[in-house]
């Protein structure tokens, strides 16, 4: 039978099934779309489908061919009704034969999603009140009703879907996975597993850049990028996915553009926001696996708690100067979470991040590439029998060390109540100001906790007289006053928040952190 066709007569699924059956394949998946009796609150009596057939058939055939190539299934076909349909009539049928069920389901899903998205079909609904109306062709409606990735577009203003441009380039050169398919452990079945997988990458910085590049290049089917920052010139030495012309643009958006240019098979969703206690559960809901690539403990523990709650695997990494650490979490009883390893959640600023401690680009690049490899291992099922561990890497001595880690029996990470309550924060601890002058007028004493070298390039209007550098506070060379009303300020609001939390635990009540730091004021 034809890969894609229209029928003005009632569809005959049994006949199509027989025509797409493959005795050498062990699996078969099918999707049927039926006319339902309501749409957007109105009762529908019947409807009509109309298609621009010559164009639509070409596009439909292309979609089925893509699904066969992409998921390695043996046969696939799709038939769409046109003409007048009654309630309960079959409107669209998809069938796929495959050696494996995962690919059968994935290919079937891909075909119906892409057909609804890309094939020019119009639908006229006749309502019981005698009224009727042409409903937008589905691909126009796609902008309003995200069907590609379920509820991700709850963040519609902050999200982008770059996959919808795919059909413009459908005739361009296909991505060629032959060099990884050649690995006996990967093969076509492995490639199909990658295509069917979805991965959320939290943080598109030094670690996130190689993670995103290698996962997109490998053909991971769907990738989400969470990052609320814009590209800064000081990022480029370790984040070469971005260029000097991108400075000031949102990282998530630029990264999505580059990944789309790299591999058009991959669907990218962007979330231009920081991961927070409020959004993290919704963000990772639609993904199989999470890669934690931020530069602060707050986000790392947030992600760790969230994946434990959601029973999803995650890959963590961190770097410090010439060293790094990688840890894989799997939702299995004996696997430790981040809190098992570090029961006293460390405070940001105490042990330094890249901005404060300095870093050479290849260090996060190496650790990020290691994360990408751990993701592929997990998705391909190459990690059987692996024991949980923290792997340390020293890029000066080129030594790696695998330290066997165990579940901490005192960690309550299996207790849903304990973790559900964890993100709850008490009272406002961060304050927002539009300008530094406004902050000065608040009546709080501003305290700059940045290091001396960070203050050297401050423009004249952005200077804060009171300076207590964090390194001196941590080392005990300076003491914070035990009373007073303070606004703690740093470059991005991460260190200041951790200092503020510390001061609150020491009994200072009127101490606040400048949200977003000086960077937020400048913009």
């Amino acid at each position, binding site marked *: 039978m034809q890969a894609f066709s229209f029928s003005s007569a009632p569809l005959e699924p049994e006949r199509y099934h027989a025509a797409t059956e493959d005795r050498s394949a062990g699996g078969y998946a099918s999707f049927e779309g039926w006319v339902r009796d309501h749409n957007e609150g109105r009762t529908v009596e019947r409807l009509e489908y109309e298609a621009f057939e010559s164009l639509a058939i070409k596009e439909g055939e292309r979609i089925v061919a893509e699904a066969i190539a992409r998921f390695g299934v043996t046969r696939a076909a799709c038939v769409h009704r046109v003409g007048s349909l009654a309630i309960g009539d079959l409107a669209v049928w998809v069938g796929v034969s495959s050696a494996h069920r995962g690919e059968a389901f994935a290919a079937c899903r891909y075909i119906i999603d892409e057909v609804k998205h890309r094939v020019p079909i119009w639908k006229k609904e006749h309502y019981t009140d005698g009224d009727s109306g042409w409903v937008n062709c589905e691909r126009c409606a796609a902008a309003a009703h995200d069907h590609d990735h379920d509820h991700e577009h709850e963040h519609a203003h902050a999200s982008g879907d770059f996959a919808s441009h795919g059909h413009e380039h459908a005739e361009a050169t296909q991505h060629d996975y032959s060099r990884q398919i050649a690995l006996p452990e990967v093969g076509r079945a492995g490639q199909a597993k990658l295509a069917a997988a979805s991965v959320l990458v939290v943080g598109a910085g030094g670690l996130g850049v190689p993670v995103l590049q290698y996962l997109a290049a490998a053909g991971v089917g769907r990738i989400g990028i969470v990052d609320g920052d814009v590209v800064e010139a000081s990022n480029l030495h370790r984040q070469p996915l971005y260029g000097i012309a991108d400075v000031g643009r949102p990282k998530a958006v630029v990264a999505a553009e580059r990944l789309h240019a790299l591999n058009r098979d991959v669907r990218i969703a962007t979330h231009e926001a920081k991961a927070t206690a409020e959004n993290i559960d919704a963000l990772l809901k639609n993904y199989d696996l999470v890669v934690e690539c931020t530069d*602060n403990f707050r986000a790392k523990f947030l992600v760790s708690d969230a994946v434990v709650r959601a029973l999803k695997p995650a890959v963590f990494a961190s770097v410090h100067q010439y060293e790094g650490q990688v840890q894989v979490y799997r939702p299995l009883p004996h696997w430790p979470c981040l809190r098992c390893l570090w029961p006293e959640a460390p405070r940001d600023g105490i042990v330094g991040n890249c901005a404060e401690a300095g870093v050479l680009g290849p260090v996060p690049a190496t650790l990020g590439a290691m994360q990408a490899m751990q993701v592929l291992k997990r998705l391909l099922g190459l990690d059987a029998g692996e024991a949980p561990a923290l792997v340390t890497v020293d890029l000066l001595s080129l030594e790696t060390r695998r330290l066997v880690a165990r579940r901490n029996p005192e960690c309550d990470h299996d207790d849903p109540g304990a973790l559900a309550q964890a993100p709850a924060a008490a009272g406002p601890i961060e304050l927002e100001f539009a300008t530094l002058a406004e902050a000065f007028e608040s009546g709080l004493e501003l305290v700059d906790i940045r290091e001396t070298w960070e203050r050297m390039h401050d423009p004249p209007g952005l200077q804060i007289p009171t300076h207590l550098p964090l390194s001196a506070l941590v080392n005990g060379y300076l003491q914070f006053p035990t009373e007073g009303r303070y606004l703690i300020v740093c470059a991005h609001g991460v260190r200041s928040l951790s200092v503020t939390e510390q001061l609150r635990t020491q009994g200072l009540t009127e101490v606040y952190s400048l949200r977003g730091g000086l960077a937020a004021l400048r913009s």
Partner: protein
Amino acid sequence: MNRIEIQYFAVLRERAGTGRETVETSAATAADLYDELAARHDFGLPRGMLRVAVNDEFTDWSRPLAAGDRVVFIPPVAGG
């Protein structure tokens, strides 16, 4: 006295000025050893913030030490 091989990471390496050293020590446990070294190198990081691994396995601070043990002190790192 036991001869112990020690490896430092991140901020501890910076403070110690070396990534590894071998010490002769009478410290009975990993905790005793850390306290001894923290005083010598002025680490300034409380033990509760760190983890210790002995012979490539994370372990409790109360673990007794034996001659020839390889001890690694690891602070959490956050950069990315």
